[in-house]
């Protein structure tokens, strides 16, 4: 049914593609825009900026989020910054360099045209955010300040203390609020999308549950935009918010949307290590800390139990500086994470369970003074002290990698439309821009780029001929989807075993973290594929979900999400097994260079793996479609940060 995947990349030289595409895209006149209902699910940077901008253009937007306010979407927790090729530092940056760093950082597993467009519009984002009143850091002159970030040799990151995501999201939320007040956007907070309605092959609506009352509703639209974020919580412990989930994109996948590169999950190197089983989430310490902090472990295992201050300089192994002299502590995330795992596997880890490495600020404090360090990272040091009870100005922080971001997501073309016409997917929920590894400060850039400056241009290409085709919600396709949603809820509430929801989710997470985490191999992945169905059966047999459906029922909310994770985990593992190479965050132990770096296989795997759901009721092995990646501008090289 699905033929060759056409990414619809425009012709012409790389640098002209986006301009040419815009010039030839469809337009919808202002009087007609209000005849279109656009459904947007999610209010993070991507969804929020898209809703605000489309509302401003005159479309009728219905915007949904599971949080009690759109301002609470998880973009809010991003700390470090947002990249833009402004070259304000005169240090050699350009659109091309940001493009090149991003495509290289992604280990050559993303599309040139998408990434170039991202770098191109990055400069407009900063202009837009400043105009909205985002209080970016400034120099004494009043000009905008920049900092450097992992995977780059220029300073192109804009930031607002350690709360850049918060400030960008609040800027975007304020723009959204303006449209809500203007009546162009109708906001549905605490409303979760539970299914996608596909009618004659087109996405034309969603089924939702009002989380406050439990009421199931249906909404029809001329197009559906998913901006529901990533699936990192499949691992149970991650830096994602508790509510982050894959339900919307997984439902869309089951309705025919292809899921691309699900095995590309980013493990962030600088998180606070886990302290016990009760732990509900992991907390990120911004990567920006690596600008001034030095990462080390003791050279000898025997020193690991000693207080860090008692370990002399000569007995410390600054392993990132040693292995990657030109990037040092700023080596990209996947490389830094694996290096930490490696030293811990050697028994040289520190802290509880030996799963931790030091991030030491002593030299930076000596060089710059505590005041400067506090100015740069004060709030992060406070967070660290709250969680661990330790003062990082005096003793080094302990950090360990944790699941942080998912590069995979629903497959989309250059217009950000999935293979299901009318279904657009933006932000972390799609797969499009980060390849096999995302560089720091690029997620915020992607979220705002698409919402403010891409989707408003590409959406009309689909919409223009769709005028007057919006169905009513009494159509059979809506009723069927609604019936399925209700049946699933009823089934969840019928369970009354002895297992808690969290215990099964934790079990799934531990399995994936162990076999499908920082390092993977075929045997482990096959073993995991054998275990997931059993865990799924255990869930449906033994889990206990209290309460009823027509109520505020947080257990039921979470149960539905865990049920979807238990299906999605199999897809992710299948993809990890099928991609028989190492690239970026996907490290297959069978494929490494003599010194332990990821070894790509461009001949066989320079392609996007897009999976089609198979099965009717039962989960069967999904069908693989490949979209070859064509590199016309960049030369594929072994990624080196030495």
């Amino acid at each position, binding site marked *: 049914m699905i033929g060759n995947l056409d990414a619809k990349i425009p012709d012409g030289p790389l640098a002209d593609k986006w301009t040419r595409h815009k010039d030839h895209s469809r337009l919808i006149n202002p009087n007609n825009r209000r005849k279109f209902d656009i459904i947007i699910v999610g209010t993070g940077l991507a969804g929020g900026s898209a809703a605000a901008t489309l509302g401003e253009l005159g479309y009728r937007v219905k915007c949904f989020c599971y949080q009690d306010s759109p301002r609470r979407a998880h973009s809010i*927790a991003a700390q470090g910054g947002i990249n833009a090729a402004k070259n304000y530092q005169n240090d050699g940056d350009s659109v091309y360099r940001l493009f090149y760093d991003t495509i290289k950082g992604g280990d050559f597993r993303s599309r040139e045209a998408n990434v170039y467009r991202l770098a191109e519009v990055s400069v407009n984002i900063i*202009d837009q955010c400043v105009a909205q009143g985002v209080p970016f850091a400034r120099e004494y002159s009043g000009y905008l300040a920049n900092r450097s970030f992992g995977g780059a040799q220029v300073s192109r990151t804009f930031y607002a203390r350690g709360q850049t995501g*918060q400030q960008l999201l609040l800027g975007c939320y304020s723009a959204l609020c303006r449209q809500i007040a203007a009546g162009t956007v109708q906001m549905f907070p605490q409303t979760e999308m539970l299914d996608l309605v596909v009618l004659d092959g087109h996405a034309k609506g969603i089924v939702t549950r009002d989380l406050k009352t439990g009421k199931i509703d249906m909404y029809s639209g001329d197009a559906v935009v998913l901006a529901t974020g990533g699936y990192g919580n499949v691992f149970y412990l991650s830096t994602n918010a508790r509510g982050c989930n894959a339900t919307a994109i997984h439902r869309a996948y089951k309705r025919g949307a292809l899921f691309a590169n699900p095995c590309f999950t980013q493990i962030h190197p600088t998180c606070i290590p886990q302290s016990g089983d009760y732990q509900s989430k992991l907390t990120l310490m911004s990567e920006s800390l690596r600008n001034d902090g030095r990462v080390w472990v003791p050279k000898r295992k025997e020193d690991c139990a000693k207080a860090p201050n008692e370990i002399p300089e000569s007995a410390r192994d600054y392993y990132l500086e040693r292995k990657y002299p030109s990037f040092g502590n700023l080596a990209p995330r996947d490389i830094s994470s694996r290096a930490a795992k490696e030293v811990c596997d050697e028994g040289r880890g520190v802290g509880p369970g030996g799963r931790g490495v030091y991030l030491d600020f002593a030299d930076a404090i000596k060089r710059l003074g505590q005041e400067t360090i506090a100015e740069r990272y004060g709030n992060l040091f406070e967070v660290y002290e709250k969680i661990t009870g330790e003062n990082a100005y005096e003793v080094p922080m302990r950090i360990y990698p944790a699941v942080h971001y998912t590069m995979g997501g629903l497959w989309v073309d250059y217009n950000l439309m999935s293979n299901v016409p009318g279904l657009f997917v933006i932000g972390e929920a799609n797969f499009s821009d980060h390849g096999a590894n995302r560089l720091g400060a690029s997620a915020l850039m992607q979220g705002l780029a698409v919402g403010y400056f891409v989707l408003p241009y590409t959406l009309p290409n689909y919409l223009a001929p769709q005028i007057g085709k919006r169905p009513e919600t009494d159509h059979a396709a809506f009723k069927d989807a609604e019936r399925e949603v209700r049946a699933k809820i009823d089934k969840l509430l019928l369970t009354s075993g002895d297992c808690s929801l969290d215990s099964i989710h934790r079990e799934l997470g531990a399995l994936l973290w162990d076999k499908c985490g920082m390092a993977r191999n075929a045997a482990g992945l096959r073993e995991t594929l054998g275990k997931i169905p059993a865990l799924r059966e255990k869930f449906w047999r033994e889990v206990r979900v209290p309460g009823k459906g027509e109520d505020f029922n947080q257990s039921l909310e979470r149960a539905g999400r865990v049920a979807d994770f238990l299906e999605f985990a199999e897809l992710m593992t299948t993809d990890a097994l099928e991609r028989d190479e190492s690239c970026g965050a996907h490290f297959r132990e069978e494929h490494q260079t003599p010194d332990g770096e990821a070894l790509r296989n461009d001949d066989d795997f320079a392609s996007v793996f897009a999976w089609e759901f198979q099965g009717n009721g039962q989960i069967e092995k999904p069908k693989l479609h490949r979209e070859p990646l064509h590199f016309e501008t960049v030369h594929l090289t072994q990624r080196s940060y030495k």
Partner: protein
Amino acid sequence: MNFKLKVWRQQDRQSPGKLIAYEARDISPNASFLEMLDVVNEQLTLRGESPIAFDSDCREGICGTCSLTVNGEAHGKDHPGAVCELYMRKFRDGETITIEPFRVGSFPIVKDLVVDRSALDRIVQAGGFISARAGSAPEANSILVPKHESDIAMEAAACIGCGACAAACPNASAMLFTSAKVSHLAHLPQGNPERESRVIKMVERMDAEGFGNCTNTYECEAVCPAEISASFIAKLNREYARAKFRRSVEE
């Protein structure tokens, strides 16, 4: 560690609520307050009792979702910080802990410890923005902002919108919340064109939502997880008076 909990249980907005006693056993001192509640909820569920409804999301103090009053203090005693950043090592073993929702007339109870804070969204919708159309922004460095002003704007903009200020205030005033947004935008040149209409509309909305007025008790500042200074309330009053005066002169 072991604790005795007294938790506010209330089925919905209409039903009466009351404090119910629970026990939290074998809790790690390194667990967060919300993780302690997760453990209690897991046990309640497996015993066939209904788990305690409470709000949380990011669990790192930035999203503003969590909203508990612990022993009478909004977000508990480890200020500054949201209740998700409160750790059990801050309590005595065996201590009795009373947990209630944020008590504000304008925040109706949804269930147990969960309240509806949409009133805060409506205050922002009334005018807490700069009307900058996507596409019309000038080059970012063409707008210079003195670092000092920018820093003050950032301090105000750090508000996480949790509503603890109103919960802690004897008058259930949301003036710290409103003043933070007004001050953030009033300190930036970009915010100037809408400066007067913004403050007037936001204050009118705040009053219409039923929030009280400030009588300088500073409880809001004491519990604010984002350390928003109560001096911004003075700024709000100044901005409001200035706007009203300018309006009256223009009329």
